[in-house]
């Protein structure tokens, strides 16, 4: 790789705090900062995972509410991973990352919710399978 390309590392010996940052990367380079982030991420994740597995196997909360609780815990844990493992922040150096993520989440939501919605209606409006079979005879 050419050394001619501009890279703040090369010219100043450290990351430029004024630049954008890709996910998984931060201007802070001290190992302690990264270890702390990993520890916090692991701690929160263990609590959220344990809560999810416990709720799924217990009658602590009202039965029909369990799936909702599980989804809330899952989304919370995804947030924990984004913040502590992927180092996505709300700072101005992360605007591009967050916008791309928001678009990704929008598409995921459209695909999943749209599929469930459309197929649910299709199932309701479709003739029951045995009648369909009778018609074909």
């Amino acid at each position, binding site marked *: 790789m050419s050394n001619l390309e501009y890279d703040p590392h090369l010219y100043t010996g450290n990351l430029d705090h004024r630049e*954008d*940052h890709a996910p998984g*990367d931060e201007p802070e380079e001290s190992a302690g900062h990264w270890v702390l982030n990993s520890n916090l991420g692991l701690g929160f994740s263990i609590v959220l995972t344990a809560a999810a597995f416990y709720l799924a196997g217990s009658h602590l909360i009202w039965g029909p509410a369990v799936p909702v609780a599980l989804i809330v815990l899952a989304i919370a844990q995804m947030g924990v991973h984004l913040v502590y493992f992927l180092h996505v922040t709300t700072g101005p150096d992360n*605007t591009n990352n967050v916008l791309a*993520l928001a678009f990704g989440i929008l598409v995921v939501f459209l695909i999943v919710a749209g599929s*469930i919605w459309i197929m649910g209606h299709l199932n309701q409006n479709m003739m029951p399978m045995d009648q369909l079979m009778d018609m074909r005879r």
Partner: protein
Amino acid sequence: MSQVDLPATIDAIRRVREDPHRLGHRGHGPEGPVVGAGHGRTGPASKRIVVGYGFWIFLLSDIIMFSCFFATFAVLRGSTAGGPTAAQIVEMPRVGLETGALLLSSYTCGLSFAATNARSKLWTQVFLLVTGLLGLAFVAMELQEFISLAGRGITPQRSGFLTSFFGLVGLHGLHVTVAGMWLATMMAQVQLKGFRREIIHRLICFNLFWHALDIVWIGIFTIVYLMGVTA
């Protein structure tokens, strides 16, 4: 910073002389970059940012592919065609172990990048190895699950639910397998090439990939396994 940007410094002269197009040449003085992002006059971003951001876009497209499999599973979860339901094929202890292995591997992967930032080759390798072994344990447990299910006649051909189950979980397992091969490659590259800039860029991308796989697994163990058992 201000010293570097003075036109008379050796670095600045070298930078201008070596690159006739002055690509990425930062402005200096009152015209210099402003705190924040998206200022075109500061020139193109460094390779480290372009590579990481490009990989981020790839990851999001990968997650969109997973969302199609999730949507299929959500639609077909009740179409068991008289075959086994989710509650009948899930072994909770195994899922718990798998989740633990993957979460711990995500943790050691984060630690390996902390070691990379500290430029410690030994600890980078140690944590990458632990990450790889945990990933291997995960794949082995999943493979064992699939084999034991197949032994009981529970295969993707049995019902729509099972097709979507094996498709979604299998796609994730395939990702972890491929990521494990990438991890082995990265360990060899770190060992032989050291912490060159392009190697660090690859390590950033690998970290992103591994953590993204753990995020997808959160969706799988919640929607497929836990909600399958409670439904």
